[in-house]
């Protein structure tokens, strides 16, 4: 039987990308020059993708500091898509979800979850042309061009029939205008039901109880819509996997406080991808475990992935990474010794988020709701900006940052409002200087790779003289 995901270009490209990454690293090649002669014969579709791959991305992937981790991550994504395929074959209802709600509950209810926005990140990162065609398609289909590419891409993919339409969408009303627009536009255009988990303005106990009620209502609605129930054993198995994934992330966050930082920056984007599908498969746990293990070994052996003699510039990214150029973090390490400590889109503070209690269904629902309530971006935009500012200042202090970088999309309005407060507070509290620049996370045409390199190069050179 022809795999169903092959009917959808968005998924097919992501799946083939996983094959290519896994296969490329299996060849043992360490550079682009070594890679191409070493590749085995490939299907025509895969060959075409190789021609479209971004050379800087591939070169960064092949480096010793990244290769095993990227391969482990690709296996996790591949499994996620295999599970999606199986769910489609079995006719399970598909849930499109914004990743601040992780998918453990959906799986345990016999539903078929897909975070289509996460797929945008992979495609944009790996390919020169990325998802620009889908971005243009989204505008043609009426979605605002000033919205974030992470949402414009999937909207265009739906318009082109390049992504499977969900049977229901689930999202929190936080974090951003762009994601809220995406789900509302999709509801309006395709008449697919949207279950909105209302995120209150405040970030206190009362607010959480409200959020928990909203969360439970969403689950009840799903049960009624699809006549399904939570399978407690399956949920416990998935929550345990998610907890294990987090245990490695928390350990990594501690290790990144070491000097030099032992965890390469390109992995932050992968961390986000892995967190957004928490509890989906063991391969994603293995990915995080491998990141932890490699970083631990570097610390124990007093090793650094930075070029010899390169002084470290410890950098906190006060908003997000830039998916369409995740190789830039390797470039910054190699050129300037700039390491990536943490960012607002991949950090989960252990002392706040902790673990999900697996005692019973109620405790697991409560724990998962608590994690969503404090998930990257969600926590950032709730309440007064003090929560966001204080989180970033705490990271800058705890990790002894030298520099801070804020790069936002024009529609990250909630974050732009705090950008100056964050840079001022970090300067006042830690003496670390900041760079702020505007980009699109997915659209390479907004701020070009060359312009981004020039900006970042100028900033990090200031530390050298």
């Amino acid at each position, binding site marked *: 039987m022809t795999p169903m995901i092959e009917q959808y270009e968005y998924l097919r490209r992501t799946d083939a990308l996983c094959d290519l990454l896994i296969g490329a690293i299996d060849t043992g090649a360490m550079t682009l020059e070594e890679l191409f002669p070493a590749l085995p014969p490939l299907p025509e579709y895969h060959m075409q993708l190789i021609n479209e791959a971004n050379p800087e991305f591939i070169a960064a992937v092949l480096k010793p500091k990244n290769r095993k981790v990227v391969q482990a991550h690709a296996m996790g994504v591949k499994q996620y898509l295999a599970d999606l395929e199986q769910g489609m074959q079995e006719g399970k209802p598909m849930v499109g979800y914004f990743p601040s709600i992780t998918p453990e509950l959906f799986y345990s209810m016999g539903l078929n979850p897909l975070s289509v926005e996460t797929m945008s990140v992979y495609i944009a990162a790996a390919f020169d042309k990325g998802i620009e065609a889908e971005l243009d398609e989204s505008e043609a289909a009426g979605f605002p061009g000033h919205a974030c590419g992470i949402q414009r891409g999937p909207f265009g993919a739906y318009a082109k029939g390049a992504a499977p339409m969900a049977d229901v969408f689930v999202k929190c009303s936080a974090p951003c205008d762009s994601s809220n627009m995406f789900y509302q536009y999709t509801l309006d255009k395709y008449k697919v039901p949207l279950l909105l988990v209302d995120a209150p303005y405040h970030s206190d106990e009362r607010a959480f109880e409200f959020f928990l009620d909203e969360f439970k209502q969403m689950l009840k609605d799903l049960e009624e819509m699809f006549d399904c129930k939570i399978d407690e054993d399956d949920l416990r198995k998935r929550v345990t996997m998610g907890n294990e994934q987090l245990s490695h992330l928390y350990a990594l966050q501690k290790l990144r406080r070491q000097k030099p930082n032992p965890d390469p920056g390109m992995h932050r984007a992968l961390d986000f991808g892995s967190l957004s599908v928490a509890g989906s498969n063991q391969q994603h746990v293995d990915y995080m475990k491998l990141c932890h293990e490699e970083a631990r070994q570097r610390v124990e052996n007093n090793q650094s992935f930075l070029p010899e003699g390169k002084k470290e510039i410890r950098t906190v990214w006060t908003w997000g990474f830039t998916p369409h150029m995740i190789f830039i973090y390797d470039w910054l390490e190699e050129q300037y010794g700039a390491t990536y400590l943490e960012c607002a889109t991949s950090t989960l503070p252990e002392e706040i988020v902790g673990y999900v209690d697996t005692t019973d269904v109620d405790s697991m629902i409560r724990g998962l709701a608590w994690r969503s309530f404090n998930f990257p971006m969600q926590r950032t935009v709730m309440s007064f900006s003090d929560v966001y500012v204080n989180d970033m200042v705490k990271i800058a202090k705890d990790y002894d940052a030298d520099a801070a970088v804020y790069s936002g999309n024009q529609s990250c309005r909630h974050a732009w409002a705090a950008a100056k407060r964050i*840079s*001022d507070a970090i*300067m006042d509290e830690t*003496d670390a200087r*900041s760079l*702020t620049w505007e980009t699109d996370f997915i659209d390479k045409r907004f701020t070009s790779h060359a312009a981004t390199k020039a900006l970042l190069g*100028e900033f990090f050179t*200031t530390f*050298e*003289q």
Partner: protein
Amino acid sequence: MLLGCDIGTAATKAVLIKDDKLLHKVKVATNANPDDALQRVHAAFASEAGISATVIEQTAITGWGQQKVSAQHINANHMNCLAKAAVWSEPSARSALCLGAQQGIALSIGKEARLLDYRVSDKCANGAGKFLDVISEALGCTVEETAAIAELSTNDLSMSSQCAVFAESEVVSLVNAGEPVPDIMEAIFRSLIKNVATLCKRVRVKGPLVLGGGLMNNHRLVAILNDSIKTETAVFAQDPDYMAAVGAALLAKRGN
């Protein structure tokens, strides 16, 4: 002897310093050819001051053309150049502002001329010399004449456009409406400084604020700036056009 060179898009400014003292300075047109501009700098030093290139121990280059020069040199970070030059000019400097042809830069400075923070003006030309080029052409005068013209202003006009392109159209409309040129020029200056003041606020400038870049040769603009930001200022000790070039020479001294 150290050569500091700021290769901008329009002009290349170069200084020779020895023992932290400025010996000579020259300015040549860049003409989109940084290599050629550097050669003409050497020729100018030889002809104007009798200084041969062979006595220059180190060359540091900053600005747009720094990556485009093939001769051996040090690439001096532009922000660090401005911080070093500001403190060279005014030892107690806490901030600097440089308004060049293409962009404005505001920076705050810590102890030992350490760069603390900086911001560069947005993509828009307002707040940079190019803006004044466009407007002076529309008003039929030279950039050098603009300060004297603005000083003749007697009425407050407001400009609604901050973009150079739209402002040019607005200027033409105001001229056609019979508004006096001095009032229009003064309104343009205030519009430009409004953007610059915002840039200064973004790095929380403190006095003494050292002013550099070609626009700071315009005494009317400096006066409006002083009135707007209410911070102690000092125009760069030599010609403000040479601020980054002096900073580059100082960085050459450090051997960076």
